[in-house]
């Protein structure tokens, strides 16, 4: 017997759609000079955030975003049933250490840059399943910690390729509740891990576009919906070339998404003036754009139904060194105003 709330192969439809009752988005200096500056709750200009290491700085960003979301919802940590969080660093240290400070029952997530969407999906399942009343979800990334772990030391002189993306410094957090007012999460489509053979870690958009396409296509099939049913199809961090590739892939599946598709990695920076090559990336990219701009537009009812697809490249420097291609995943949720 199929599960009660499962629709099709990969999608769940929530019986009582959980509500996003509060959000917080904190960004770094470069993001604060970008076109979305006024959608962030706070911009921290100091890349160290007053700490003495990049890792502590990222942890602070995440913790501040989580605390801000709690404060906006008028909640104390003990009022929350679960904290779902994750980031890009080994052993998701930013999330683990922020969770240590907050002392909320914690479920660590790793979906690379898709983590905030993975958290939205799992959090909404916990609530609609009757296992929680209130769930706190958060995710973060920091340019320097990501460069250090995945690429080169930040001060090393390297020339970036045109397809390289710029890791966003920032954190997003949101409170999901069973009741209340705010945008609602009506569906979630959990992605499969997809790998179409892209292996260039400086072209993440190309690696992740097939995962976004796979999840979107399954979402449309499972829900029997079409592109036109959504005001916006938002992907996490495909960047400029990944966006083009996704649109082309979707055409080959029979969906023309170009007119309604946008990408957080494109929205967050001004490509002409900010020297970010193919756009933004990192957990903080979809997290800050979704918790900032997108939630605001949904609250203002300028957007009514959004399909958000967080995209994650599930590689490590070790696998790249061993010549493996990049497995990727896309997790989708439907947000309604």
């Amino acid at each position, binding site marked *: 017997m199929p599960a009660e709330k499962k629709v099709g192969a990969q999608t769940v439809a929530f019986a009582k759609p959980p509500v996003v009752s509060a959000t917080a988005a904190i960004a770094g200096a470069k993001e604060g000079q970008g076109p979305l500056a006024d959608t962030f709750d706070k911009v921290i200009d100091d890349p160290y955030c007053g700490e*003495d*290491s*990049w*890792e502590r700085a990222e942890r602070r960003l995440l913790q501040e975003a989580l605390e801000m979301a709690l404060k906006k919802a008028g909640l104390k940590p003990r009022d929350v049933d679960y904290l779902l969080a994750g980031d890009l660093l080994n052993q998701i240290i930013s999330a683990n250490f922020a969770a240590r400070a907050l002392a909320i029952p914690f479920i660590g997530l790793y979906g690379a840059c898709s983590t905030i969407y993975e958290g939205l999906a799992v959090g909404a399942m916990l609530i609609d399943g009757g296992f929680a009343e209130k769930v706190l979800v958060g995710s973060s990334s920091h340019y320097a910690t990501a460069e*250090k772990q995945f690429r*080169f*030391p*930040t*001060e*090393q*002189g*390297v*020339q*970036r*390729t*045109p*397809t390289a993306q710029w890791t966003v410094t920032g954190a997003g957090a949101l409170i999901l509740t069973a009741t209340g007012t705010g945008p609602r999460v009506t569906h979630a489509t959990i992605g499969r891990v997809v790998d*179409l*053979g*892209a292996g260039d870690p400086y*072209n993440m958009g*190309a690696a992740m576009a*097939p995962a976004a396409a796979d999840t979107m*296509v399954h979402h449309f099939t499972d829900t029997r919906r079409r592109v036109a049913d959504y005001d916006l199809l938002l992907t996490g961090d495909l960047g400029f*070339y990944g966006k*083009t*590739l996704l649109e*082309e*892939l979707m*055409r*080959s*599946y*029979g969906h023309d998404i170009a007119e309604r598709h946008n990408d957080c990695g494109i929205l967050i920076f001004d490509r002409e003036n900010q*020297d970010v090559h193919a756009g933004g990336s990192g957990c903080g990219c979809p997290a800050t754009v979704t918790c900032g701009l997108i939630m605001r537009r949904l609250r203002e009812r300028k957007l009514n139904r959004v399909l958000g697809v967080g995209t994650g490249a599930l590689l490590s420097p070790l696998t790249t060194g061993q010549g493996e291609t990049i497995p990727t995943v896309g997790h989708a949720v439907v947000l309604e105003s």
Partner: protein
Amino acid sequence: MRQNAKRAFDPGKPLEMQKQAYKKMVKKVSPKPPVIRNSIWAFAVGGFICAVGQAFLTLFQGLGLSTLDAGTATAIVLVFIAAFLTGLGLYDEIARFAGAGTIVPITGFANAMVAPALEGRTEGIVMGVGARLFSVAGPILVLGITAAWLVGILYYFLGPRTP
């Protein structure tokens, strides 16, 4: 779905064929690095660094050092300047444009040692700075010395005999 036949990518095909088709799509969409612009930058900045080196060499020779000693002193000065600029966070800003022009000269080697050491600082002096110092430069040293050793052996057996 008939239109799919004309498209480059066909999701109905086996995975291996999808991978081939996708590889072509990615190649078509992704721009190539601007090789000519990068080369001009590399030539100009790399040449400038070498000219600065020559200026120091001439200066040190003028101050009375032998050619060998002046060369050593020049290398010390260039390495210091590169390490200093790395510490100030400027070397990578120049390298973004200059590319190979800042990597190939001895200054690039200094940068490749100082940059990881700076990041290792938070993990302490021994396992942080000490161990990380060679994390980028290590392979260059190992392979560079191995190559020099091989060439030396070949030269010993095959090179011209000194009388």
